[in-house]
């Protein structure tokens, strides 16, 4: 349901454009807000109710393909644990920032969620979040030749 808090033991995935992941290495820029954004868009993996991580990733790749007008060949997805991310930012940011990961479902994207309590110039927090990435995957399904 909209506004539900994602439990700390759960995981989220963030779509990262190729320009934010040069050479496949995701940078802090992937965790910076656009000027008009209130929260950082992510997907709640456990909400997908897939049997394993592999199928969660496949489901998100399929969803990105449908939802986004273009999924770049070199775009990636970053996978993070909610609790680790929140605790790292709480302990490491100068203002002890308490981030919230909340469910924000959309019509064509039911697992859509957001990371709240970020500001537009939070470069240090973006670097802290980047340090908590536990896995990266291609955002686009690999095509067979």
């Amino acid at each position, binding site marked *: 349901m909209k506004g539900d808090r994602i439990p700390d033991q759960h995981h989220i995935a963030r779509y990262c*454009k190729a*320009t*934010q992941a*040069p050479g496949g290495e995701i*940078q802090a*820029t992937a965790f910076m807000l656009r*000027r008009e954004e209130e929260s950082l868009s992510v997907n709640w993996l456990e909400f997908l109710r897939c049997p394993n991580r592999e199928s969660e990733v496949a489901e998100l790749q399929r969803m990105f393909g449908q939802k986004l007008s*273009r999924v770049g060949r070199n775009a990636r997805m970053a996978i993070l644990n909610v609790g680790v991310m929140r605790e790292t930012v709480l302990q490491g940011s100068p203002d002890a920032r308490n981030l919230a990961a909340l469910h924000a479902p959309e019509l064509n994207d039911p697992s859509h969620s957001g990371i709240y309590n970020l500001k537009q110039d939070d*470069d*240090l927090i973006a670097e802290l979040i980047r340090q908590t990435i536990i896995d990266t995957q291609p955002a686009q399904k690999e095509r067979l030749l």
Partner: protein
Amino acid sequence: MPELRLHTREGFEAMGEGLLYSDKSLTANFPKEESYSSAWSRESVSLQEFSLLLPQKVRYFLTPFVAIENSEASEVSSFQKEMGPFTQANLLDYEEDQIQEAIFRIRTSLSVLCRELANRLLSLFHDAKEEEVSINIDSLRNFYSFFQLNPKLKCPTISLTPENDIYASWKGEQNRLFSVYFLPCGGVRFVVFKPNDRHPEQQIRLSGTATSDILMETVASYGIWDWISE
């Protein structure tokens, strides 16, 4: 490292034969210098000869919109006759051309660092193009000015912020980090992570703002220069 001169006639002439390939040369052949070394050699070709040989897209050097500093009235009027009304598409093309030329300038600088930097920027340029966005040229200029002032820096990882500005990041041992957001206005925002020598289990983290010309002085006390320079 030479100064970045995008708009001058001297800069135009100095580009030599490489420009004859226009963006095709940059996009298709850029990183493979061994195979196309002759494409980068400089030969003396006059401005007039260039002007005749160039495809219309790269004749922006003679436009009133870019040749602000050294343009002549006759060049401006000839552009207006040939090109017709200025459209949004012209503007996008113009910005793209400026970025490519800036990268070309960095590429033709003498240092090895510049070549690596240019390769990384070119890769970013292609990725941005695929995402239908464009690197902010003023942020790119700010980034290049910083490297002109600090030519001995190691090549950073370069990415684009959500506003399409340049963000450079150096990462070192023991989770050392120095990241710089190059703002279009000449300012910078920076982040430093470094080990706390007295408390090894702790890390020192700080962020701040400055201008690119005094950035390295501003962060000098954090010992960054030692690990981000050659």
